[in-house]
């Protein structure tokens, strides 16, 4: 059983490395991520939001819905640990 798991893990790892070899060079200005929507954010951030920090502007204004999901995930993680590990007073005395 453990040998089958090891083989599956190594096979998935090899497939991911093979897929990552095809991606654009790090910092390439012509890659699709850097030429489609990023120049628009960089040019328009001062006149639309009046906030000098571009990272915070993208995180909280242009992609604010994703940050809401992120905050909800942090909240759910805290609640899950609370539900599993917190003992009520009756269990502490027993």
């Amino acid at each position, binding site marked *: 059983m453990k040998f089958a798991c090891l083989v599956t893990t190594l096979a998935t790892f090899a497939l991911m490395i093979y897929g990552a070899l095809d991606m654009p060079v790090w910092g390439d200005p012509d890659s699709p991520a850097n030429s489609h929507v990023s120049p628009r954010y960089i040019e328009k951030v001062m006149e639309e939001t009046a*906030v000098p*920090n571009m990272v*915070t502007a993208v995180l909280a*204004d242009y992609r*604010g*819905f994703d940050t809401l999901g992120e*905050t909800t995930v942090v909240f759910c993680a*805290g609640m899950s640990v609370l539900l599993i*590990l917190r003992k009520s007073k009756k269990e502490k005395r027993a």
Partner: protein
Amino acid sequence: MITRQDSIIIGTITRLLIPFIQLFALYIIMHGHSSPGGGFQGGVIMGASFILLGITYGMDMVKKIFTIRLLTIFTSLGVLIYGGIGLLCLLLGKNFLNYGVLPISAPRSMGMFGIEIGVGITVMAVMVSLFYDLVEFE
């Protein structure tokens, strides 16, 4: 269970440093607009100041200051602030989280500021809550 340390040096240094750590955390949250920082980073530093108090002076003292009831209120308060600002923008006419319709000057900047405060409160409360739960698990 973490109990009180008997060293004068550790107690004195902690008491001197904790207000400055909290002030620095508030500075990082407020200056998310012009310097690196924002809500997540400031919230973590603020939670770390309470954890430092708990390590130095024992869990009993921290639980008297930052009670468990207050902690659960703060965890949900941050998400409520964030969703509340989005819902307010919805009620004023336009899309969810469209800050342009808020009736204050520089609405997009102030909307971002409000949601960063909400994020900071939630992250601080979750850090302290995780510390409380993991310390008691023996």
